[in-house]
């Protein structure tokens, strides 16, 4: 894992969650800003997946690589699914879904770092 990228992803996911939380508090449905946050997040996650596989292929990474690969791929689903599910709801609860998605991505990235460095179980 590259720490700079992981940090960037965590920052973007928390910013996207905060932005959508504001949208939700203002009682607005999901707008372009909310979707843009998810789009940036998704691009970063794809970059991470590619880099992750390259590094794993190069022999780096944790002993228990299956779990790491699971996270690497599963996390890609979150922003896309959040956008789709949130867009179906034309109320404040649409951006609410993005808040959940952003927080979930942040937690998953922290967990992936633990798995990569072997400090988590």
């Amino acid at each position, binding site marked *: 894992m590259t720490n700079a990228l992981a940090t960037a992803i965590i920052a973007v996911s928390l910013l996207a969650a905060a932005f959508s939380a504001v949208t939700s508090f203002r*009682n607005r*449905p999901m707008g372009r800003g909310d979707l843009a946050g998810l789009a940036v997040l998704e691009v970063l996650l794809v970059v991470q997946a590619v880099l992750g596989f390259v590094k794993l292929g190069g022999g780096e990474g944790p002993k*228990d690589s*299956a*779990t790491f690969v*699971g*996270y690497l791929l*599963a996390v890609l*689903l*979150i922003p896309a*699914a*959040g956008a789709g*599910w*949130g867009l*179906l*709801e*034309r*109320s*404040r*609860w*649409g951006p*609410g*879904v993005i*808040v*959940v*998605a952003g927080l*979930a991505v942040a937690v998953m990235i922290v967990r992936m770092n633990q798995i990569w460095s072997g400090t988590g*179980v």
Partner: protein
Amino acid sequence: MSDTTESPATTGTGSGPGRMLVAVYAIFALAAGARAGVQIATKFSEAPVAYTLSAFAAVVYVLATVALARGGRTSRRLAVAACSVELAGVLVVGTLSLADPAAFPDATVWSGYGRGYGFVPLVLPVVGLLWLRRTARAGRG
């Protein structure tokens, strides 16, 4: 369509605030499912009970997610059942895993009352059941 401020009235279990609940359930379905998949595929013989339990938990989360998202009478019943099983599961497995750690050599989502997941597995079924009760009442009134 735009003025769904606070009332869940007329809406199903999967819309309004319920949409966030379904989102959280979907993440747990994914988390439990992926975890069970990896555990069973790579090291099932190490702790068959714990891993079978992981898979069972994953199925319950998937059922709850789908049932809450769909709404309707049958789905509502299924959702109540799934949330109840989930609550019972997290309480029983949580207690057993603390009382007899040797029986659970590897963690499941429900171990230690969902400690590994910020206790969300303990809170989620309670919120789910409350939400189902609330939307049922709103639907009748």
